[in-house]
């Protein structure tokens, strides 16, 4: 069984306790998996524990500490998957985590399994040397032996074991080869540890410098490797040709756009059906509760608050799972590291790193997975800037609002409506980039870190790893959805549902008319529907949310909004798409899109003027492009940025920008005679 323990992404601190598994007791040991990025460390973890973790080709993606358990004949083993590092002495978050964990492990007599790339022995042995110098009990896994064999690299493992003073196990983790031998080695070393058998004298002094260790690593590699005639030139040529193409300023960009277009097309296509299914399931559940519970506050709380709140969040789960599934496949191919360079040329100008392209693009589908995927970004400043601006990207939840408002604005201009629609996306992206530039020059001063990346070998992606990644990320999302988001949803429902308002006289009359014996069933049902709409409208107007709409209307008056539009903005604070349903309720229109637009177009203010004039609709459109109207996003920002202050800053900043831009839009249009 695996357990995913979060490391604070912002600080790199492991949440207390420092290591989540208790110190070893009799019959129980702890093993730390350590290694360079892209050596198959997490694949090995999955094989050992049957547990779920992420394997990445993109340096720096392991930001969660995963633990699993392994049963051996005589003992049980807790396995900890550490972040991939190149050098334990680096001042990076990942190196700090591993340094702390290794210090604990040494004191507790734990084992470390160092997984190294057999085809790149010289570089990988530096980390082994650092751990040996620190007097750690090690098992060395010589992974990717198949790649080494293809390159005609033969390694004398007995000599290597003797030189290191530690057991060496050859393996191909991707195919499960060598797992049995490793289990045996763990058993042997764990017994040695429990019997307090001393470690062989370290081959390196504790104070060995990096240079000393590098020279030692190269010398050891030379002494154990027999390099045959090089037959790998075909592979190298392929890699070089692909690199030239994929990082080319024009071709690389075209490939990037095609890949990302395909990714999002697949994302929407794949996620659509499960999203509908989730929607329908929760609707049925709500119907069941309504059927079996008597009318009243408890039923309303369960159906509209709890079930509605969970449904509104869980419905994003397919998008999140499919997105991470597809990104994992892309990472495995080795493409993402190349794509980061393609985008770095553009994003660097705005203080964003090339790595930010995945979160920003993802945010076009939904800001939640977009913000979660900022874990790809190694630098904290870069990550924070990206998190803060990601919700500016127009997400799918904004689409119904864009459709409604552009339809209101350009009802008689079928060409202008889609242009305005596209303009919304461009406005959002422009605001994101300019805001990134602003943050980079103010509160998060600094340029994005110049790109230095290992370019992993091109390879066929692992379906298994992609599925496990999707599962991990989905569970992580649900953990958030199950707590903060649901609580907020219930509060927002309560504001919209209370106090209860008496049905208006017109609705009572309609119901009386519908109950008359002479009336046809169809006609009766239609009258009931009309009565329900009137009652819902009266409820909205008389609820706390409606009252607050009246109260805050003066704030939005400079933007041209009346109390109804203000109430719509308020309720859509929960989620943007709620704006459309709120306006539909206030307009007393049907639920389908055309009915809503037709109904909203006829809405009137108390003085008889239309609610949506061209200037008001344009102002509202700009507001919705730029405003932070999504509570789940704020909850995820708080978690990923490492503090409530970042979520509040995001809310305050985006709301301020939205207000200012909407104000300028409305007042400018009025000045030009468009009201």
């Amino acid at each position, binding site marked *: 069984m695996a357990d995913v323990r979060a490391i604070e992404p912002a600080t790199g601190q492991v949440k207390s306790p420092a290591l989540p598994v208790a110190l070893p007791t009799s019959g129980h040991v702890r093993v730390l998996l350590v290694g360079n990025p892209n050596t198959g460390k997490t694949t090995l973890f999955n094989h050992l524990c049957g547990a779920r973790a992420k394997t990445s080709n993109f340096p720096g993606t392991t930001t969660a500490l995963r633990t699993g358990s392994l049963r051996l004949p005589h003992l049980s083993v807790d396995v900890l998957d550490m972040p991939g590092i*190149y050098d334990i002495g680096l001042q990076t978050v990942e190196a700090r985590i591993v340094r702390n964990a290794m210090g604990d492990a040494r004191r507790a007599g734990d084992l470390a399994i160092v997984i190294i790339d057999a085809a790149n022995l010289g570089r990988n042995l530096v980390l082994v040397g650092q751990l040996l110098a620190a007097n750690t009990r090690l098992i060395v896994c010589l992974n990717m032996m198949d790649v080494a064999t293809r390159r005609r690299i033969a390694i004398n493992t007995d000599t290597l074991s003797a030189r290191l003073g530690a057991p060496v196990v050859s393996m191909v983790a991707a195919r499960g080869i060598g797992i049995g031998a490793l289990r045996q080695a763990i058993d042997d070393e764990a017994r040695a540890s429990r019997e307090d058998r001393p470690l062989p004298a370290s081959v390196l002094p504790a104070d060995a410098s990096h240079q000393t260790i590098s020279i030692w690593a190269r010398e050891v590699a030379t002494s154990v490797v027999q390099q045959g005639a090089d037959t790998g030139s075909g592979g190298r040529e392929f890699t070089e040709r692909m690199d030239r193409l994929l990082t080319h300023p024009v071709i690389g960009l075209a490939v990037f756009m095609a890949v990302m277009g395909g990714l999002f097309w697949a994302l929407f296509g794949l996620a659509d059906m499960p999203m509908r299914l989730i929607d329908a399931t929760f609707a049925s559940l709500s119907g069941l509760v309504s059927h079996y519970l008597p009318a009243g506050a408890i039923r309303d709380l369960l159906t509209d608050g709890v079930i509605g709140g969970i449904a509104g969040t869980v419905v994003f789960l397919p998008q999140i799972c499919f997105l991470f599934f597809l990104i994992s496949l892309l990472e495995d191919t080795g493409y993402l590291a190349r794509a980061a360079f393609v985008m770095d040329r553009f994003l660097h100008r705005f203080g964003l790193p090339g790595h930010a392209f995945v979160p920003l693009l993802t945010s076009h589908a939904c800001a939640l997975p977009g913000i979660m995927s900022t874990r790809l970004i190694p630098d904290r400043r870069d990550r924070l800037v990206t998190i803060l601006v990601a919700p500016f990207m127009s997400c799918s939840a904004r689409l119904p609002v864009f459709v409604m408002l552009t339809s209101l604005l350009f009802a008689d201009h079928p060409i202008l409506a889609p242009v305005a629609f596209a303009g919304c996306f461009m406005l959002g992206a422009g605001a994101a980039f300019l805001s990134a530039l602003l943050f980079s020059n103010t509160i998060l001063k600094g340029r994005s870190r110049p790109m230095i990346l290992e370019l992993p070998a091109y390879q066929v992606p692992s379906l298994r790893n992609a599925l496990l990644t999707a599962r991990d990320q989905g569970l992580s999302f649900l953990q958030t959805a199950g707590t903060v988001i649901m609580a907020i949803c219930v509060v927002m429902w309560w504001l919209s549902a209370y106090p209860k308002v008496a049905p208006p006289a017109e609705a009572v009359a309609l119901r009386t008319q519908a109950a008359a014996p002479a009336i046809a069933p169809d006609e009766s049902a239609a009258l009931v529907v009309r009565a329900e709409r009137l009652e819902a409208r009266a409820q909205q107007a008389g609820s706390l949310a409606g009252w607050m709409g009246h109260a805050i209307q003066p704030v939005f008056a400079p933007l041209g909004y009346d109390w109804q539009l203000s109430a719509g903005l308020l309720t859509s604070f929960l989620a943007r798409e709620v704006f459309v349903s709120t306006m539909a309720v206030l307009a007393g229109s049907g639920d389908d899109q055309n009915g809503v637009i037709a109904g909203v177009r006829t809405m009137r203010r108390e003085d008889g003027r239309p609610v949506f004039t061209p200037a008001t609709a344009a102002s509202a459109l700009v507001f919705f492009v730029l405003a932070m109207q999504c509570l789940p996003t704020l909850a995820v920002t708080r978690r990923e940025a490492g503090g409530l202050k970042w979520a509040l800053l995001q809310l305050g900043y985006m709301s301020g920008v939205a207000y200012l831009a909407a104000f300028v839009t409305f007042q400018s249009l009025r000045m030009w005679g468009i009201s």
Partner: protein
Amino acid sequence: MALAVPCAAGTPVALTALRVGRTCRLHEARLDDEAVGLLRALGLSHHEAFRLCKAGEPCILQVGGTRIGLSRKVASCIFVIPDPVDA
């Protein structure tokens, strides 16, 4: 911080000035500690010969079994001594 190495033969040149396919050794990296540490951890040291696979943006190096991508800005701060064998 800069990694400086005595230059016995050859003239140090910026990595951006090197021709694709040339092998060379690191002379100096005029970058901050973090970047220098990362380059060193990736195997780019004055002991290790490496090959320039691609110039421009990004600049791609082959260091032993490792392929490293560098932005042009980073590459312009790295000075190398072309290998005398193929210089």
